[in-house]
C-alpha cells in the first residue's frame, strides 16, 4: 500500500551512548562495526551516531539514558547495573561460571536470552549480548599469592561482586579512581588490581610496576551488552528491526575474535619486552577457597530473590551439562597437544 511505501523511505536517525571513551580499542570498535553494518544493510535508512563517554559525560548513565529514551541505544556491560537490580549481573559473567563459547550457547540455545528479557522487560529496555572479552586475567599483583592467608588484608582494586567474594577471604577491596590506579599500584597504596587482560592492560602500563600477572577466576567470559529502548525498537519497520539485531549479533561475535587476536599479539609483545613479568595461577587451595566463598555468597542472594534463584539454577545446570563436552573436546585436545610437545 501507499502507506507502507512511505514507511520504506523513512529515515531513522538513532543515537547510541557507550560507556567507553573515544577511540577505546576493541569495545569502541564493536559499536562502530555495528553502526556501519546497519547503515550499509539498511541502505542508509537507519543510521546510528555513537556518543562516547566524552560526549555524554556519564559512563555509567547508559542504563538510565536508554530507559528514559534520551538515547535509543546503549553499549555497556550488564554487571554495571548490579546496584539497581542484582540480577542484571548474571548476564555479563559470573566467577567460576562459563567460558565465552559455553555462555554463547546458553544465551542463544540454553534460555539465557529469555531470562535476560525477563529481567530487563520491567525497564522498557531490550538487552543483547554486546561482545566478549574472553577470559579475563586475575590481575596484577605486587606480591606472590601462595596461600589463602596471603589474601588477608590484601588491598585490591576489584569492583563489584568479585570484590565481595575476595572480601570473604579477608581481602580489602578498595576504590581508586582509574586515573590514580597506576600511581597507587606503583607506590603500594594498593597491593593488586584487576583490569581486563593483555588486550587492554598494556596501555595502562601496569606491567612496568607489578611483577606478577595472575590468571583469572572471576570473569571467565565477560560479555558486554547492547541495550535498545523498547519503544524505539517497536517504532522501527520489521526489516530494520531484523537488520539491527543481526548487526548487533555479528558485531558482538566479531569483538570476541578481535579480543582473542589482540590478547595474542599483546601477550607476545609483553613476553618479549618484559620477560621479568611472571605469569602465575593461584594455587589449588586458594582457588578452592575462592570457589567456596563464591558459592556461599550466591546462595545467600538466591535465598533472597526467586528470580536470582531461577537464573542461578539455569546457569549452573547449563554449565554442568556443557562443561562435560568442553572437557571432552577442547580441554582434552589441549592437554593431549601439550603432552605431545
Amino acid at each position, binding site marked *: 500500500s501507499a502507506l507502507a511505501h512511505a514507511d520504506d523511505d523513512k529515515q531513522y536517525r538513532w543515537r547510541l551512548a557507550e560507556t567507553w571513551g573515544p577511540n577505546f580499542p576493541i569495545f569502541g570498535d564493536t559499536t562502530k562495526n555495528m553502526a556501519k553494518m546497519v547503515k550499509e544493510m539498511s541502505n542508509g535508512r537507519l543510521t546510528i551516531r555513537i556518543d562516547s563517554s566524552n560526549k555524554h559525560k556519564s559512563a555509567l548513565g547508559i542504563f538510565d539514558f536508554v530507559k528514559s529514551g534520551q538515547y535509543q541505544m546503549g553499549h555497556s556491560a550488564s*554487571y554495571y547495573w*548490579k546496584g539497581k537490580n542484582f540480577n542484571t549481573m548474571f548476564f555479563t559473567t559470573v566467577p567460576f561460571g562459563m567460558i565465552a563459547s559455553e555462555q554463547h550457547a546458553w544465551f542463544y540455545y540454553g534460555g539465557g536470552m529469555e531470562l535476560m528479557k525477563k529481567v530487563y522487560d520491567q525497564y522498557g529496555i531490550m538487552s543483547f549480548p554486546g561482545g566478549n572479552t574472553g577470559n579475563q586475567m586475575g590481575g596484577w599483583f605486587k606480591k606472590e599469592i601462595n596461600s589463602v592467608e596471603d589474601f588477608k588484608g590484601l588491598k585490591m582494586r576489584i569492583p563489584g561482586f568479585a*570484590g565481595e567474594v*575476595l*572480601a570473604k577471604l579477608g581481602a*580489602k*577491596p578498595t576504590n581508586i579512581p582509574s586515573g590514580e590506579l597506576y600511581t597507587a599500584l606503583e607506590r603500594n597504596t594498593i597491593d593488586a588490581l584487576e583490569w581486563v587482560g593483555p588486550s587492554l592492560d598494556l596501555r595502562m602500563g601496569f606491567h612496568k610496576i607489578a611483577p606478577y600477572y595472575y590468571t583469572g577466576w572471576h570473569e571467565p567470559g565477560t560479555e558486554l551488552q547492547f541495550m535498545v529502548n523498547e519503544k524505539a525498537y517497536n517504532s522501527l519497520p520489521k526489516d530494520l528491526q531484523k537488520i539491527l539485531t543481526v548487526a548487533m549479533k555479528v558485531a558482538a561475535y566479531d569483538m570476541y575474535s578481535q579480543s582473542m587476536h589482540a590478547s595474542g599479539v599483546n601477550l607476545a609483545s609483553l613476553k618479549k619486552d618484559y620477560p621479568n613479568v611472571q605469569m602465575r595461577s593461584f594455587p589449588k587451595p586458594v582457588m578452592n577457597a575462592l570457589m567456596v566463598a563464591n558459592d556461599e555468597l550466591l546462595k545467600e542472594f538466591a535465598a533472597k530473590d526467586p528470580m536470582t534463584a531461577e537464573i542461578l539454577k539455569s546457569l549452573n545446570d547449563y554449565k554442568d551439562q556443557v562443561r562435560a563436552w568442553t572437557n571432552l573436546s577442547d580441554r582434552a585436545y589441549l592437554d593431549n597437544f601439550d603432552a605431545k610437545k
Partner: protein
Amino acid sequence: MDSVLKITGKIIDALGNFCSLLMVLMIINVFYDVIMRYFFNDVSIGMQELEWHLFAGMFMFGIAYTFKEDGHVRVDIFYDSMSAKKQALVNIFGSIVLALPITLIILYYSWDYTFEAYQMGEGSGDPGGLPHRWIVRSVIPLSSIFLMLSIFHVLIAQLKILTAPTPLEAGEE
C-alpha cells in the same frame, strides 16, 4: 522588603554554616580513611564513598551561599567602572535571564533523575558500598531550590539598590 531580605539571608547563612560543617567532615573522613588503610590495613568502600557524598553536598549547596555572598567570579573590565545602579541592572538581568532559567531546568530534570534512583532502590554496586543512591542524587534538586532562594534574595537586594534615591536626591532630603 527588608524583613524578607533578613529572613532569606539568615536561611542562606545557615546553609553556609552547614556547608562548612560538611567540608570539615569531608577532610576528617578522607584523613581517617588514609590512616585506617595505612596504619591499620583496614579499608571500607562505604567510608570511601561517604567522602564524595560529603564533597558533593558541600560544594553544591555552597553555590547558593556563594551566590548570596557575591563570591562567584566575574570578568570586571567594564563592570567595575559602572555606577551602582548600572551594576544592579546587570545583576538583575543576569539573575532573571541567565541564572534563574538554568536553575529551574536543572531542578526540573534532576527531580526525575532522583526519583528514578529512589524507585529502583539503587545503591552502590561495590562491596560494602552505600545504599540509597537517591540521597546523594537529591543534592542536585535540593541545591537548585536553595539557589532559587538565593537568586530571589539577590534580586530583591539589587532592586532595592536600583529603586533607591540617587545620592543627589538623597542629599536634598
